[in-house]
Structure formats: structure tokens, C-alpha cells
């Protein structure tokens, strides 16, 4: 059933782009690993947002199905990421990503 009054697909894409870029900016500027994880979630969420918007635009289920998978991924990824963060904190006693620089050159 069509929804006549919704804003355009473009608006959705714009919003999603803005959110994605914000996430990217945060990823680049934060040194705290946990913040970085949050920023990754922002980025993922931005992509997921676009799937839903596009799905609504085309009127097929694929968009929301992809959303489901993206959320699944986000959950699994965060689980592993947090496990690694815990290990990181316990070994280095910091969450500063810049401390992870033994491998270089």
C-alpha cells in the first residue's frame, strides 16, 4: 500500500550519507576503541537505513531483509569486537588505539 506523503528517496540517501560520514569522521578522530566501535555501528546503521528506505521506495521486501542481515552482522561483529577490546584492555590497561602500533614499517 503506497504511502503518498513520505519524503523522497533522495532525502533518505542524504540522511544516510550524512550519518555515514559522521561515523567515518568519528572513526578517524577518536582514540578510544569503544568510541571507534560506536562509530562503526553508526556507519553500519547508515547503510542499513538506506536499505530500508530503498526497499520502501521500490516496494519490495529485499531492503528490509538485508536490514535484518545487517543487524545480525552488527551483533556478531560487536560481540567479537568487544571480546578483543577486553583482551586489549587487560593486556595494555588502556583503550587508546594509538598504543597499538608495534607492527609498522
Amino acid at each position, binding site marked *: 500500500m503506497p504511502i503518498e506523503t513520505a519524503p523522497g528517496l533522495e532525502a533518505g*540517501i542524504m540522511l*544516510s550519507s550524512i550519518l555515514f560520514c559522521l561515523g567515518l569522521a568519528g572513526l578517524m578522530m577518536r582514540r578510544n576503541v569503544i568510541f571507534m566501535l560506536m562509530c562503526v555501528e553508526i556507519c553500519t546503521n547508515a547503510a542499513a537505513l538506506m536499505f530500508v528506505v530503498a526497499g520502501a521506495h521500490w516496494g*519490495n521486501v*529485499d531492503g528490509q531483509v538485508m536490514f535484518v*542481515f545487517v543487524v545480525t552482522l552488527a551483533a556478531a561483529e560487536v560481540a567479537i569486537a568487544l571480546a578483543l577490546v577486553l583482551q586489549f584492555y587487560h593486556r595494555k590497561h588502556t583503550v587508546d588505539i594509538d598504543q597499538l602500533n*608495534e607492527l609498522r*614499517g
Partner: protein
Amino acid sequence: MSAQELFGILPLLILSAGIVILLLQVSFWRGHLGALATTTITLVLAMTSCFWVAGSLSGATSSIQVTGLLQVDYTALFFCLILLLTAFAISIMGYNYLRLRCDPKGISGSYPEEYYILLLLAMLGACTLIFSSHFATFFLGLELISLSLYPMLGFSLTGDLSPKREKLQSLESAIKYLILSALSTALGLFGIALIYSASGALDFVGIASRITELSQTSTLFATGVTLLLISIAFKLSLVPFHIWTPDVYQGAPTPTTALIATVGKGAVIGFLLRFFNILDLYSSQVLLDMLSIAAIASMLVGNLLALMQTNIKRLLAYSSIGHIGYLIVAFIIGKSTFGTEAVIYYLVAYIITTLGSFAVIGLVADSVEEKVLKGEYPESPLSDVQNPYQRAFYRGLLWRSPWLAGCFAAMLLSLAGIPLTIGFIGKFYVFTAGVEGQMWVLLAGVVIGSALGLFYYLRLLLTMVQRDNVPDINNTGAVQIATSGQLLLLILTTALLVFGIFPQILINWINAL
């Protein structure tokens, strides 16, 4: 879903079954060798099933569509087979690695068995990726690889016996890969979403049916494909998205490094071939230009970075950047007489050689680790000569362990593209493809890259024949690697030479696709 469809994805089913069985087995009875056995049996069965499936494909049904998400055809099965073989080799390398890191008799144990579960999961992801004909399966397959790789990268973290330095490096590589890969996934998803926005379809055939009107009207689609390509370039570590490669390769457990360098890239290449073919992206000059620039940059930057590198794992990481650059050169001409063939051949060459060289490094490091555990060797290397990951350690290896060094030399020569090895035929294919496509700039890049590459491959090679300042890790100076490892190296070297001298064998297989 019909029975034929189910039969088509038999390799995937077998892998899934293997995963479940292994899970159950581990929860009841932990045992390293047992896990290895289950894994190898699963892999062998999956390989066999590839042949069955291939046998059922014929004439009219040269490909099977499985619920619109997967598509099984000869090329995909060939890739699948290659990757499963690789996984087999990696499981052997992994066994030798874990044997020395995870104390089986430890009080709580450090559970090496998970490694095999993750390996099988990664293989499931890789095979899915290759079979995928839909963005959902593409995405899930890709992420399945990544998600299994994160813990595998950080695996020595939990090994009771792993040296502390190794643990920290392993952790670092896992976190770095995770953050960067997550971003790349997000970007790729963003790209897929854009493609979906533009086309309204997620399956490749559906997109392809709309492609003519799309490419004329919408930059949305092009943007989406570009973003997706960036994500793929990241996985392939093409310049400028290569920057994670050396750190992750160096820090990871060597079998995982081999996995990420071979399966991680091979599956993506397999997918890319299908993706470009179905969507006919070869007609898009912009994309080809992008790929060309990335390829040239990869060949130059990768080889330049490797030039003065003394850590062998990093060196191979850099060299793999260059090699993917060469591969992309062949890839760019795409659907021509030699294009696809060249890509597949080069990929096989790359996989065999990379696997072999990482196997050597890993096995040598393992043999040192064994001595450390026995207390015969300093725990933390005092100098480069004592560090098995440093070039200096390989001084005079040919005199100390001639067979091992011979295998490694063959690998290096293959990487350098010298005749008698498969790497040469691969490079020859690249040249043929390049000439066919008349891509002289790219070929110039290949030549310059190869010339640069020669320098560091040769330096490493000649380090092995050096006569003085040879490290002495025990009285005879020989490096004694595990028997299974020896066998693995022997097989890989034989394949490398046989396919190098009689390439027609492999060409026939590829052309039978």
C-alpha cells in the same frame, strides 16, 4: 528448493555439516588431532562433492540456480576446489602451529579446536562468496570470512604457550583488521544500498536486466559500484587500500596469514569475475580506469615497500600487494580469449606460491618455537639472526637445510616469475593478456614492478646461500621442521614445478570449465 538445487550446493552443505559435527565433537570430547581429522575429512568430502556436482553439470544445465541466491557452475566449482585444497594445507600448517601454542594438557586448556571450526566457517563463507549471485549471499559470505578471521587473527592470544610478544602482535593485528574491515564492510554495504536504490534489485541478474537504463540515467548506480569496488579493493589490499596488509599479515599467526592471503583474496577474485561478467561491467570505462590505476599503484607501491624490508612476513605481505596488482592487469581485459584464463592461472600460481612461502616461514618459526619450549633457544630473540621472522635468520639456510631452502627458493623464484616455476607461466599469461588488451601502460607497470621485485626476492634468495655469519640454532645448524610440514612443502613445490614445466595440464583443467 528442489533436490537438484540442494545437490548443487552440496559442498556448502557438507561444510556446514562438518561445522556442526565439529562443534558437537568438541563439546563432548576435546582433542586436537580429532578436530584436525574431522576438519580434513570434511574438506576432502567437500572437494569430492565438488567433483560430483561438476559431473552432474553438463551441456544444457551448465549452471544451477539455487533459490536465486546462489549459482553453481564450473568456474565456481573450480575456485571452490582450489580454495578447499588451500584450506587443507592451512589446516596442516595450523596443526603444527597450534601444537606448540596451545598446551593440550593445560589445566583449562587453551582450546586449539576452535581454530578448525573457524577455518571451516571461513571456508563456508568463501564458497558462498564464490557461488553467490545475490548481494545477500555475497554480503553474508564475505562477512562470514571476516568474522571467522577476526578470532583466527587473534588466536595466539589465548594460546597458553605462545610468547607474549606474539600474543600482543596477534591482538594488534586482529583489532586493526577488525576496525578497518568493519569500515570497509560498512562502505560496501553503503554501495550495495546505493545499487539497490538505483536498481531496485539485489540479485545480479535482476540488476543486469536494468543495467542499460541505469548506466545512462543514474550516477547513483556508478557510485554504488565504486563504493563496492572500494570495499573489494580493501579485501584484495589494492593500493590505496593496502595499508592494513603488512601489519595484519605480520601480527597474525602464520597459518591465518596464509589463509587471509590466499582464501581471502581468491574467493573475492572468484566473485569479482562472476560479478563483472554478469553485470558486464567491462564496458564501463570508468571502472576499468579505476582498476588500472589501482593495479599500477599496487604493482609499484607494493614492490617499493618490500624493497628494503627485513621482516619476511611483511615482505611477503608487500609482495602480495604487488602480485594482486599483476592479477588485476589480467583481470582488466576480462572476457577476452586469455583474460579469464589468465586470471585463474595467475591466481592458482599465486595461491600455491604464497601458501608455500608462508608455510616455510611458519614451519621454520614453529621449529624454533619447539626449541624455545625445550629451553634450547633464547625465549626472546636477542638479534635479528635469532628471530625466525627476520631475513638474517635465513642466512646460509641452503647449507644447513638444503631441502627446506630449496623449496623456499623455488617459491621465491616463482614469486619473481622465473621459468621452471608456475609463477613464470602466470606472468606469461599476464603478459599475453596485456598484449591482447594492448594495455601498454599496465605492462610497463608489470615490468617495472617485476624488476623492483627481483631485488628483494633475490636478496632473500641470496641470503640463503650466504656463506658467512650463519646463525647456529643447534649444533648442526639445521632447521628441523615437522614431517607433515615437509610433506606439505614437497607437494606444493612439486605442483609449482610441474605446473611450471608442463602448464598444459592446468590449462586443460581450466579450459574444461
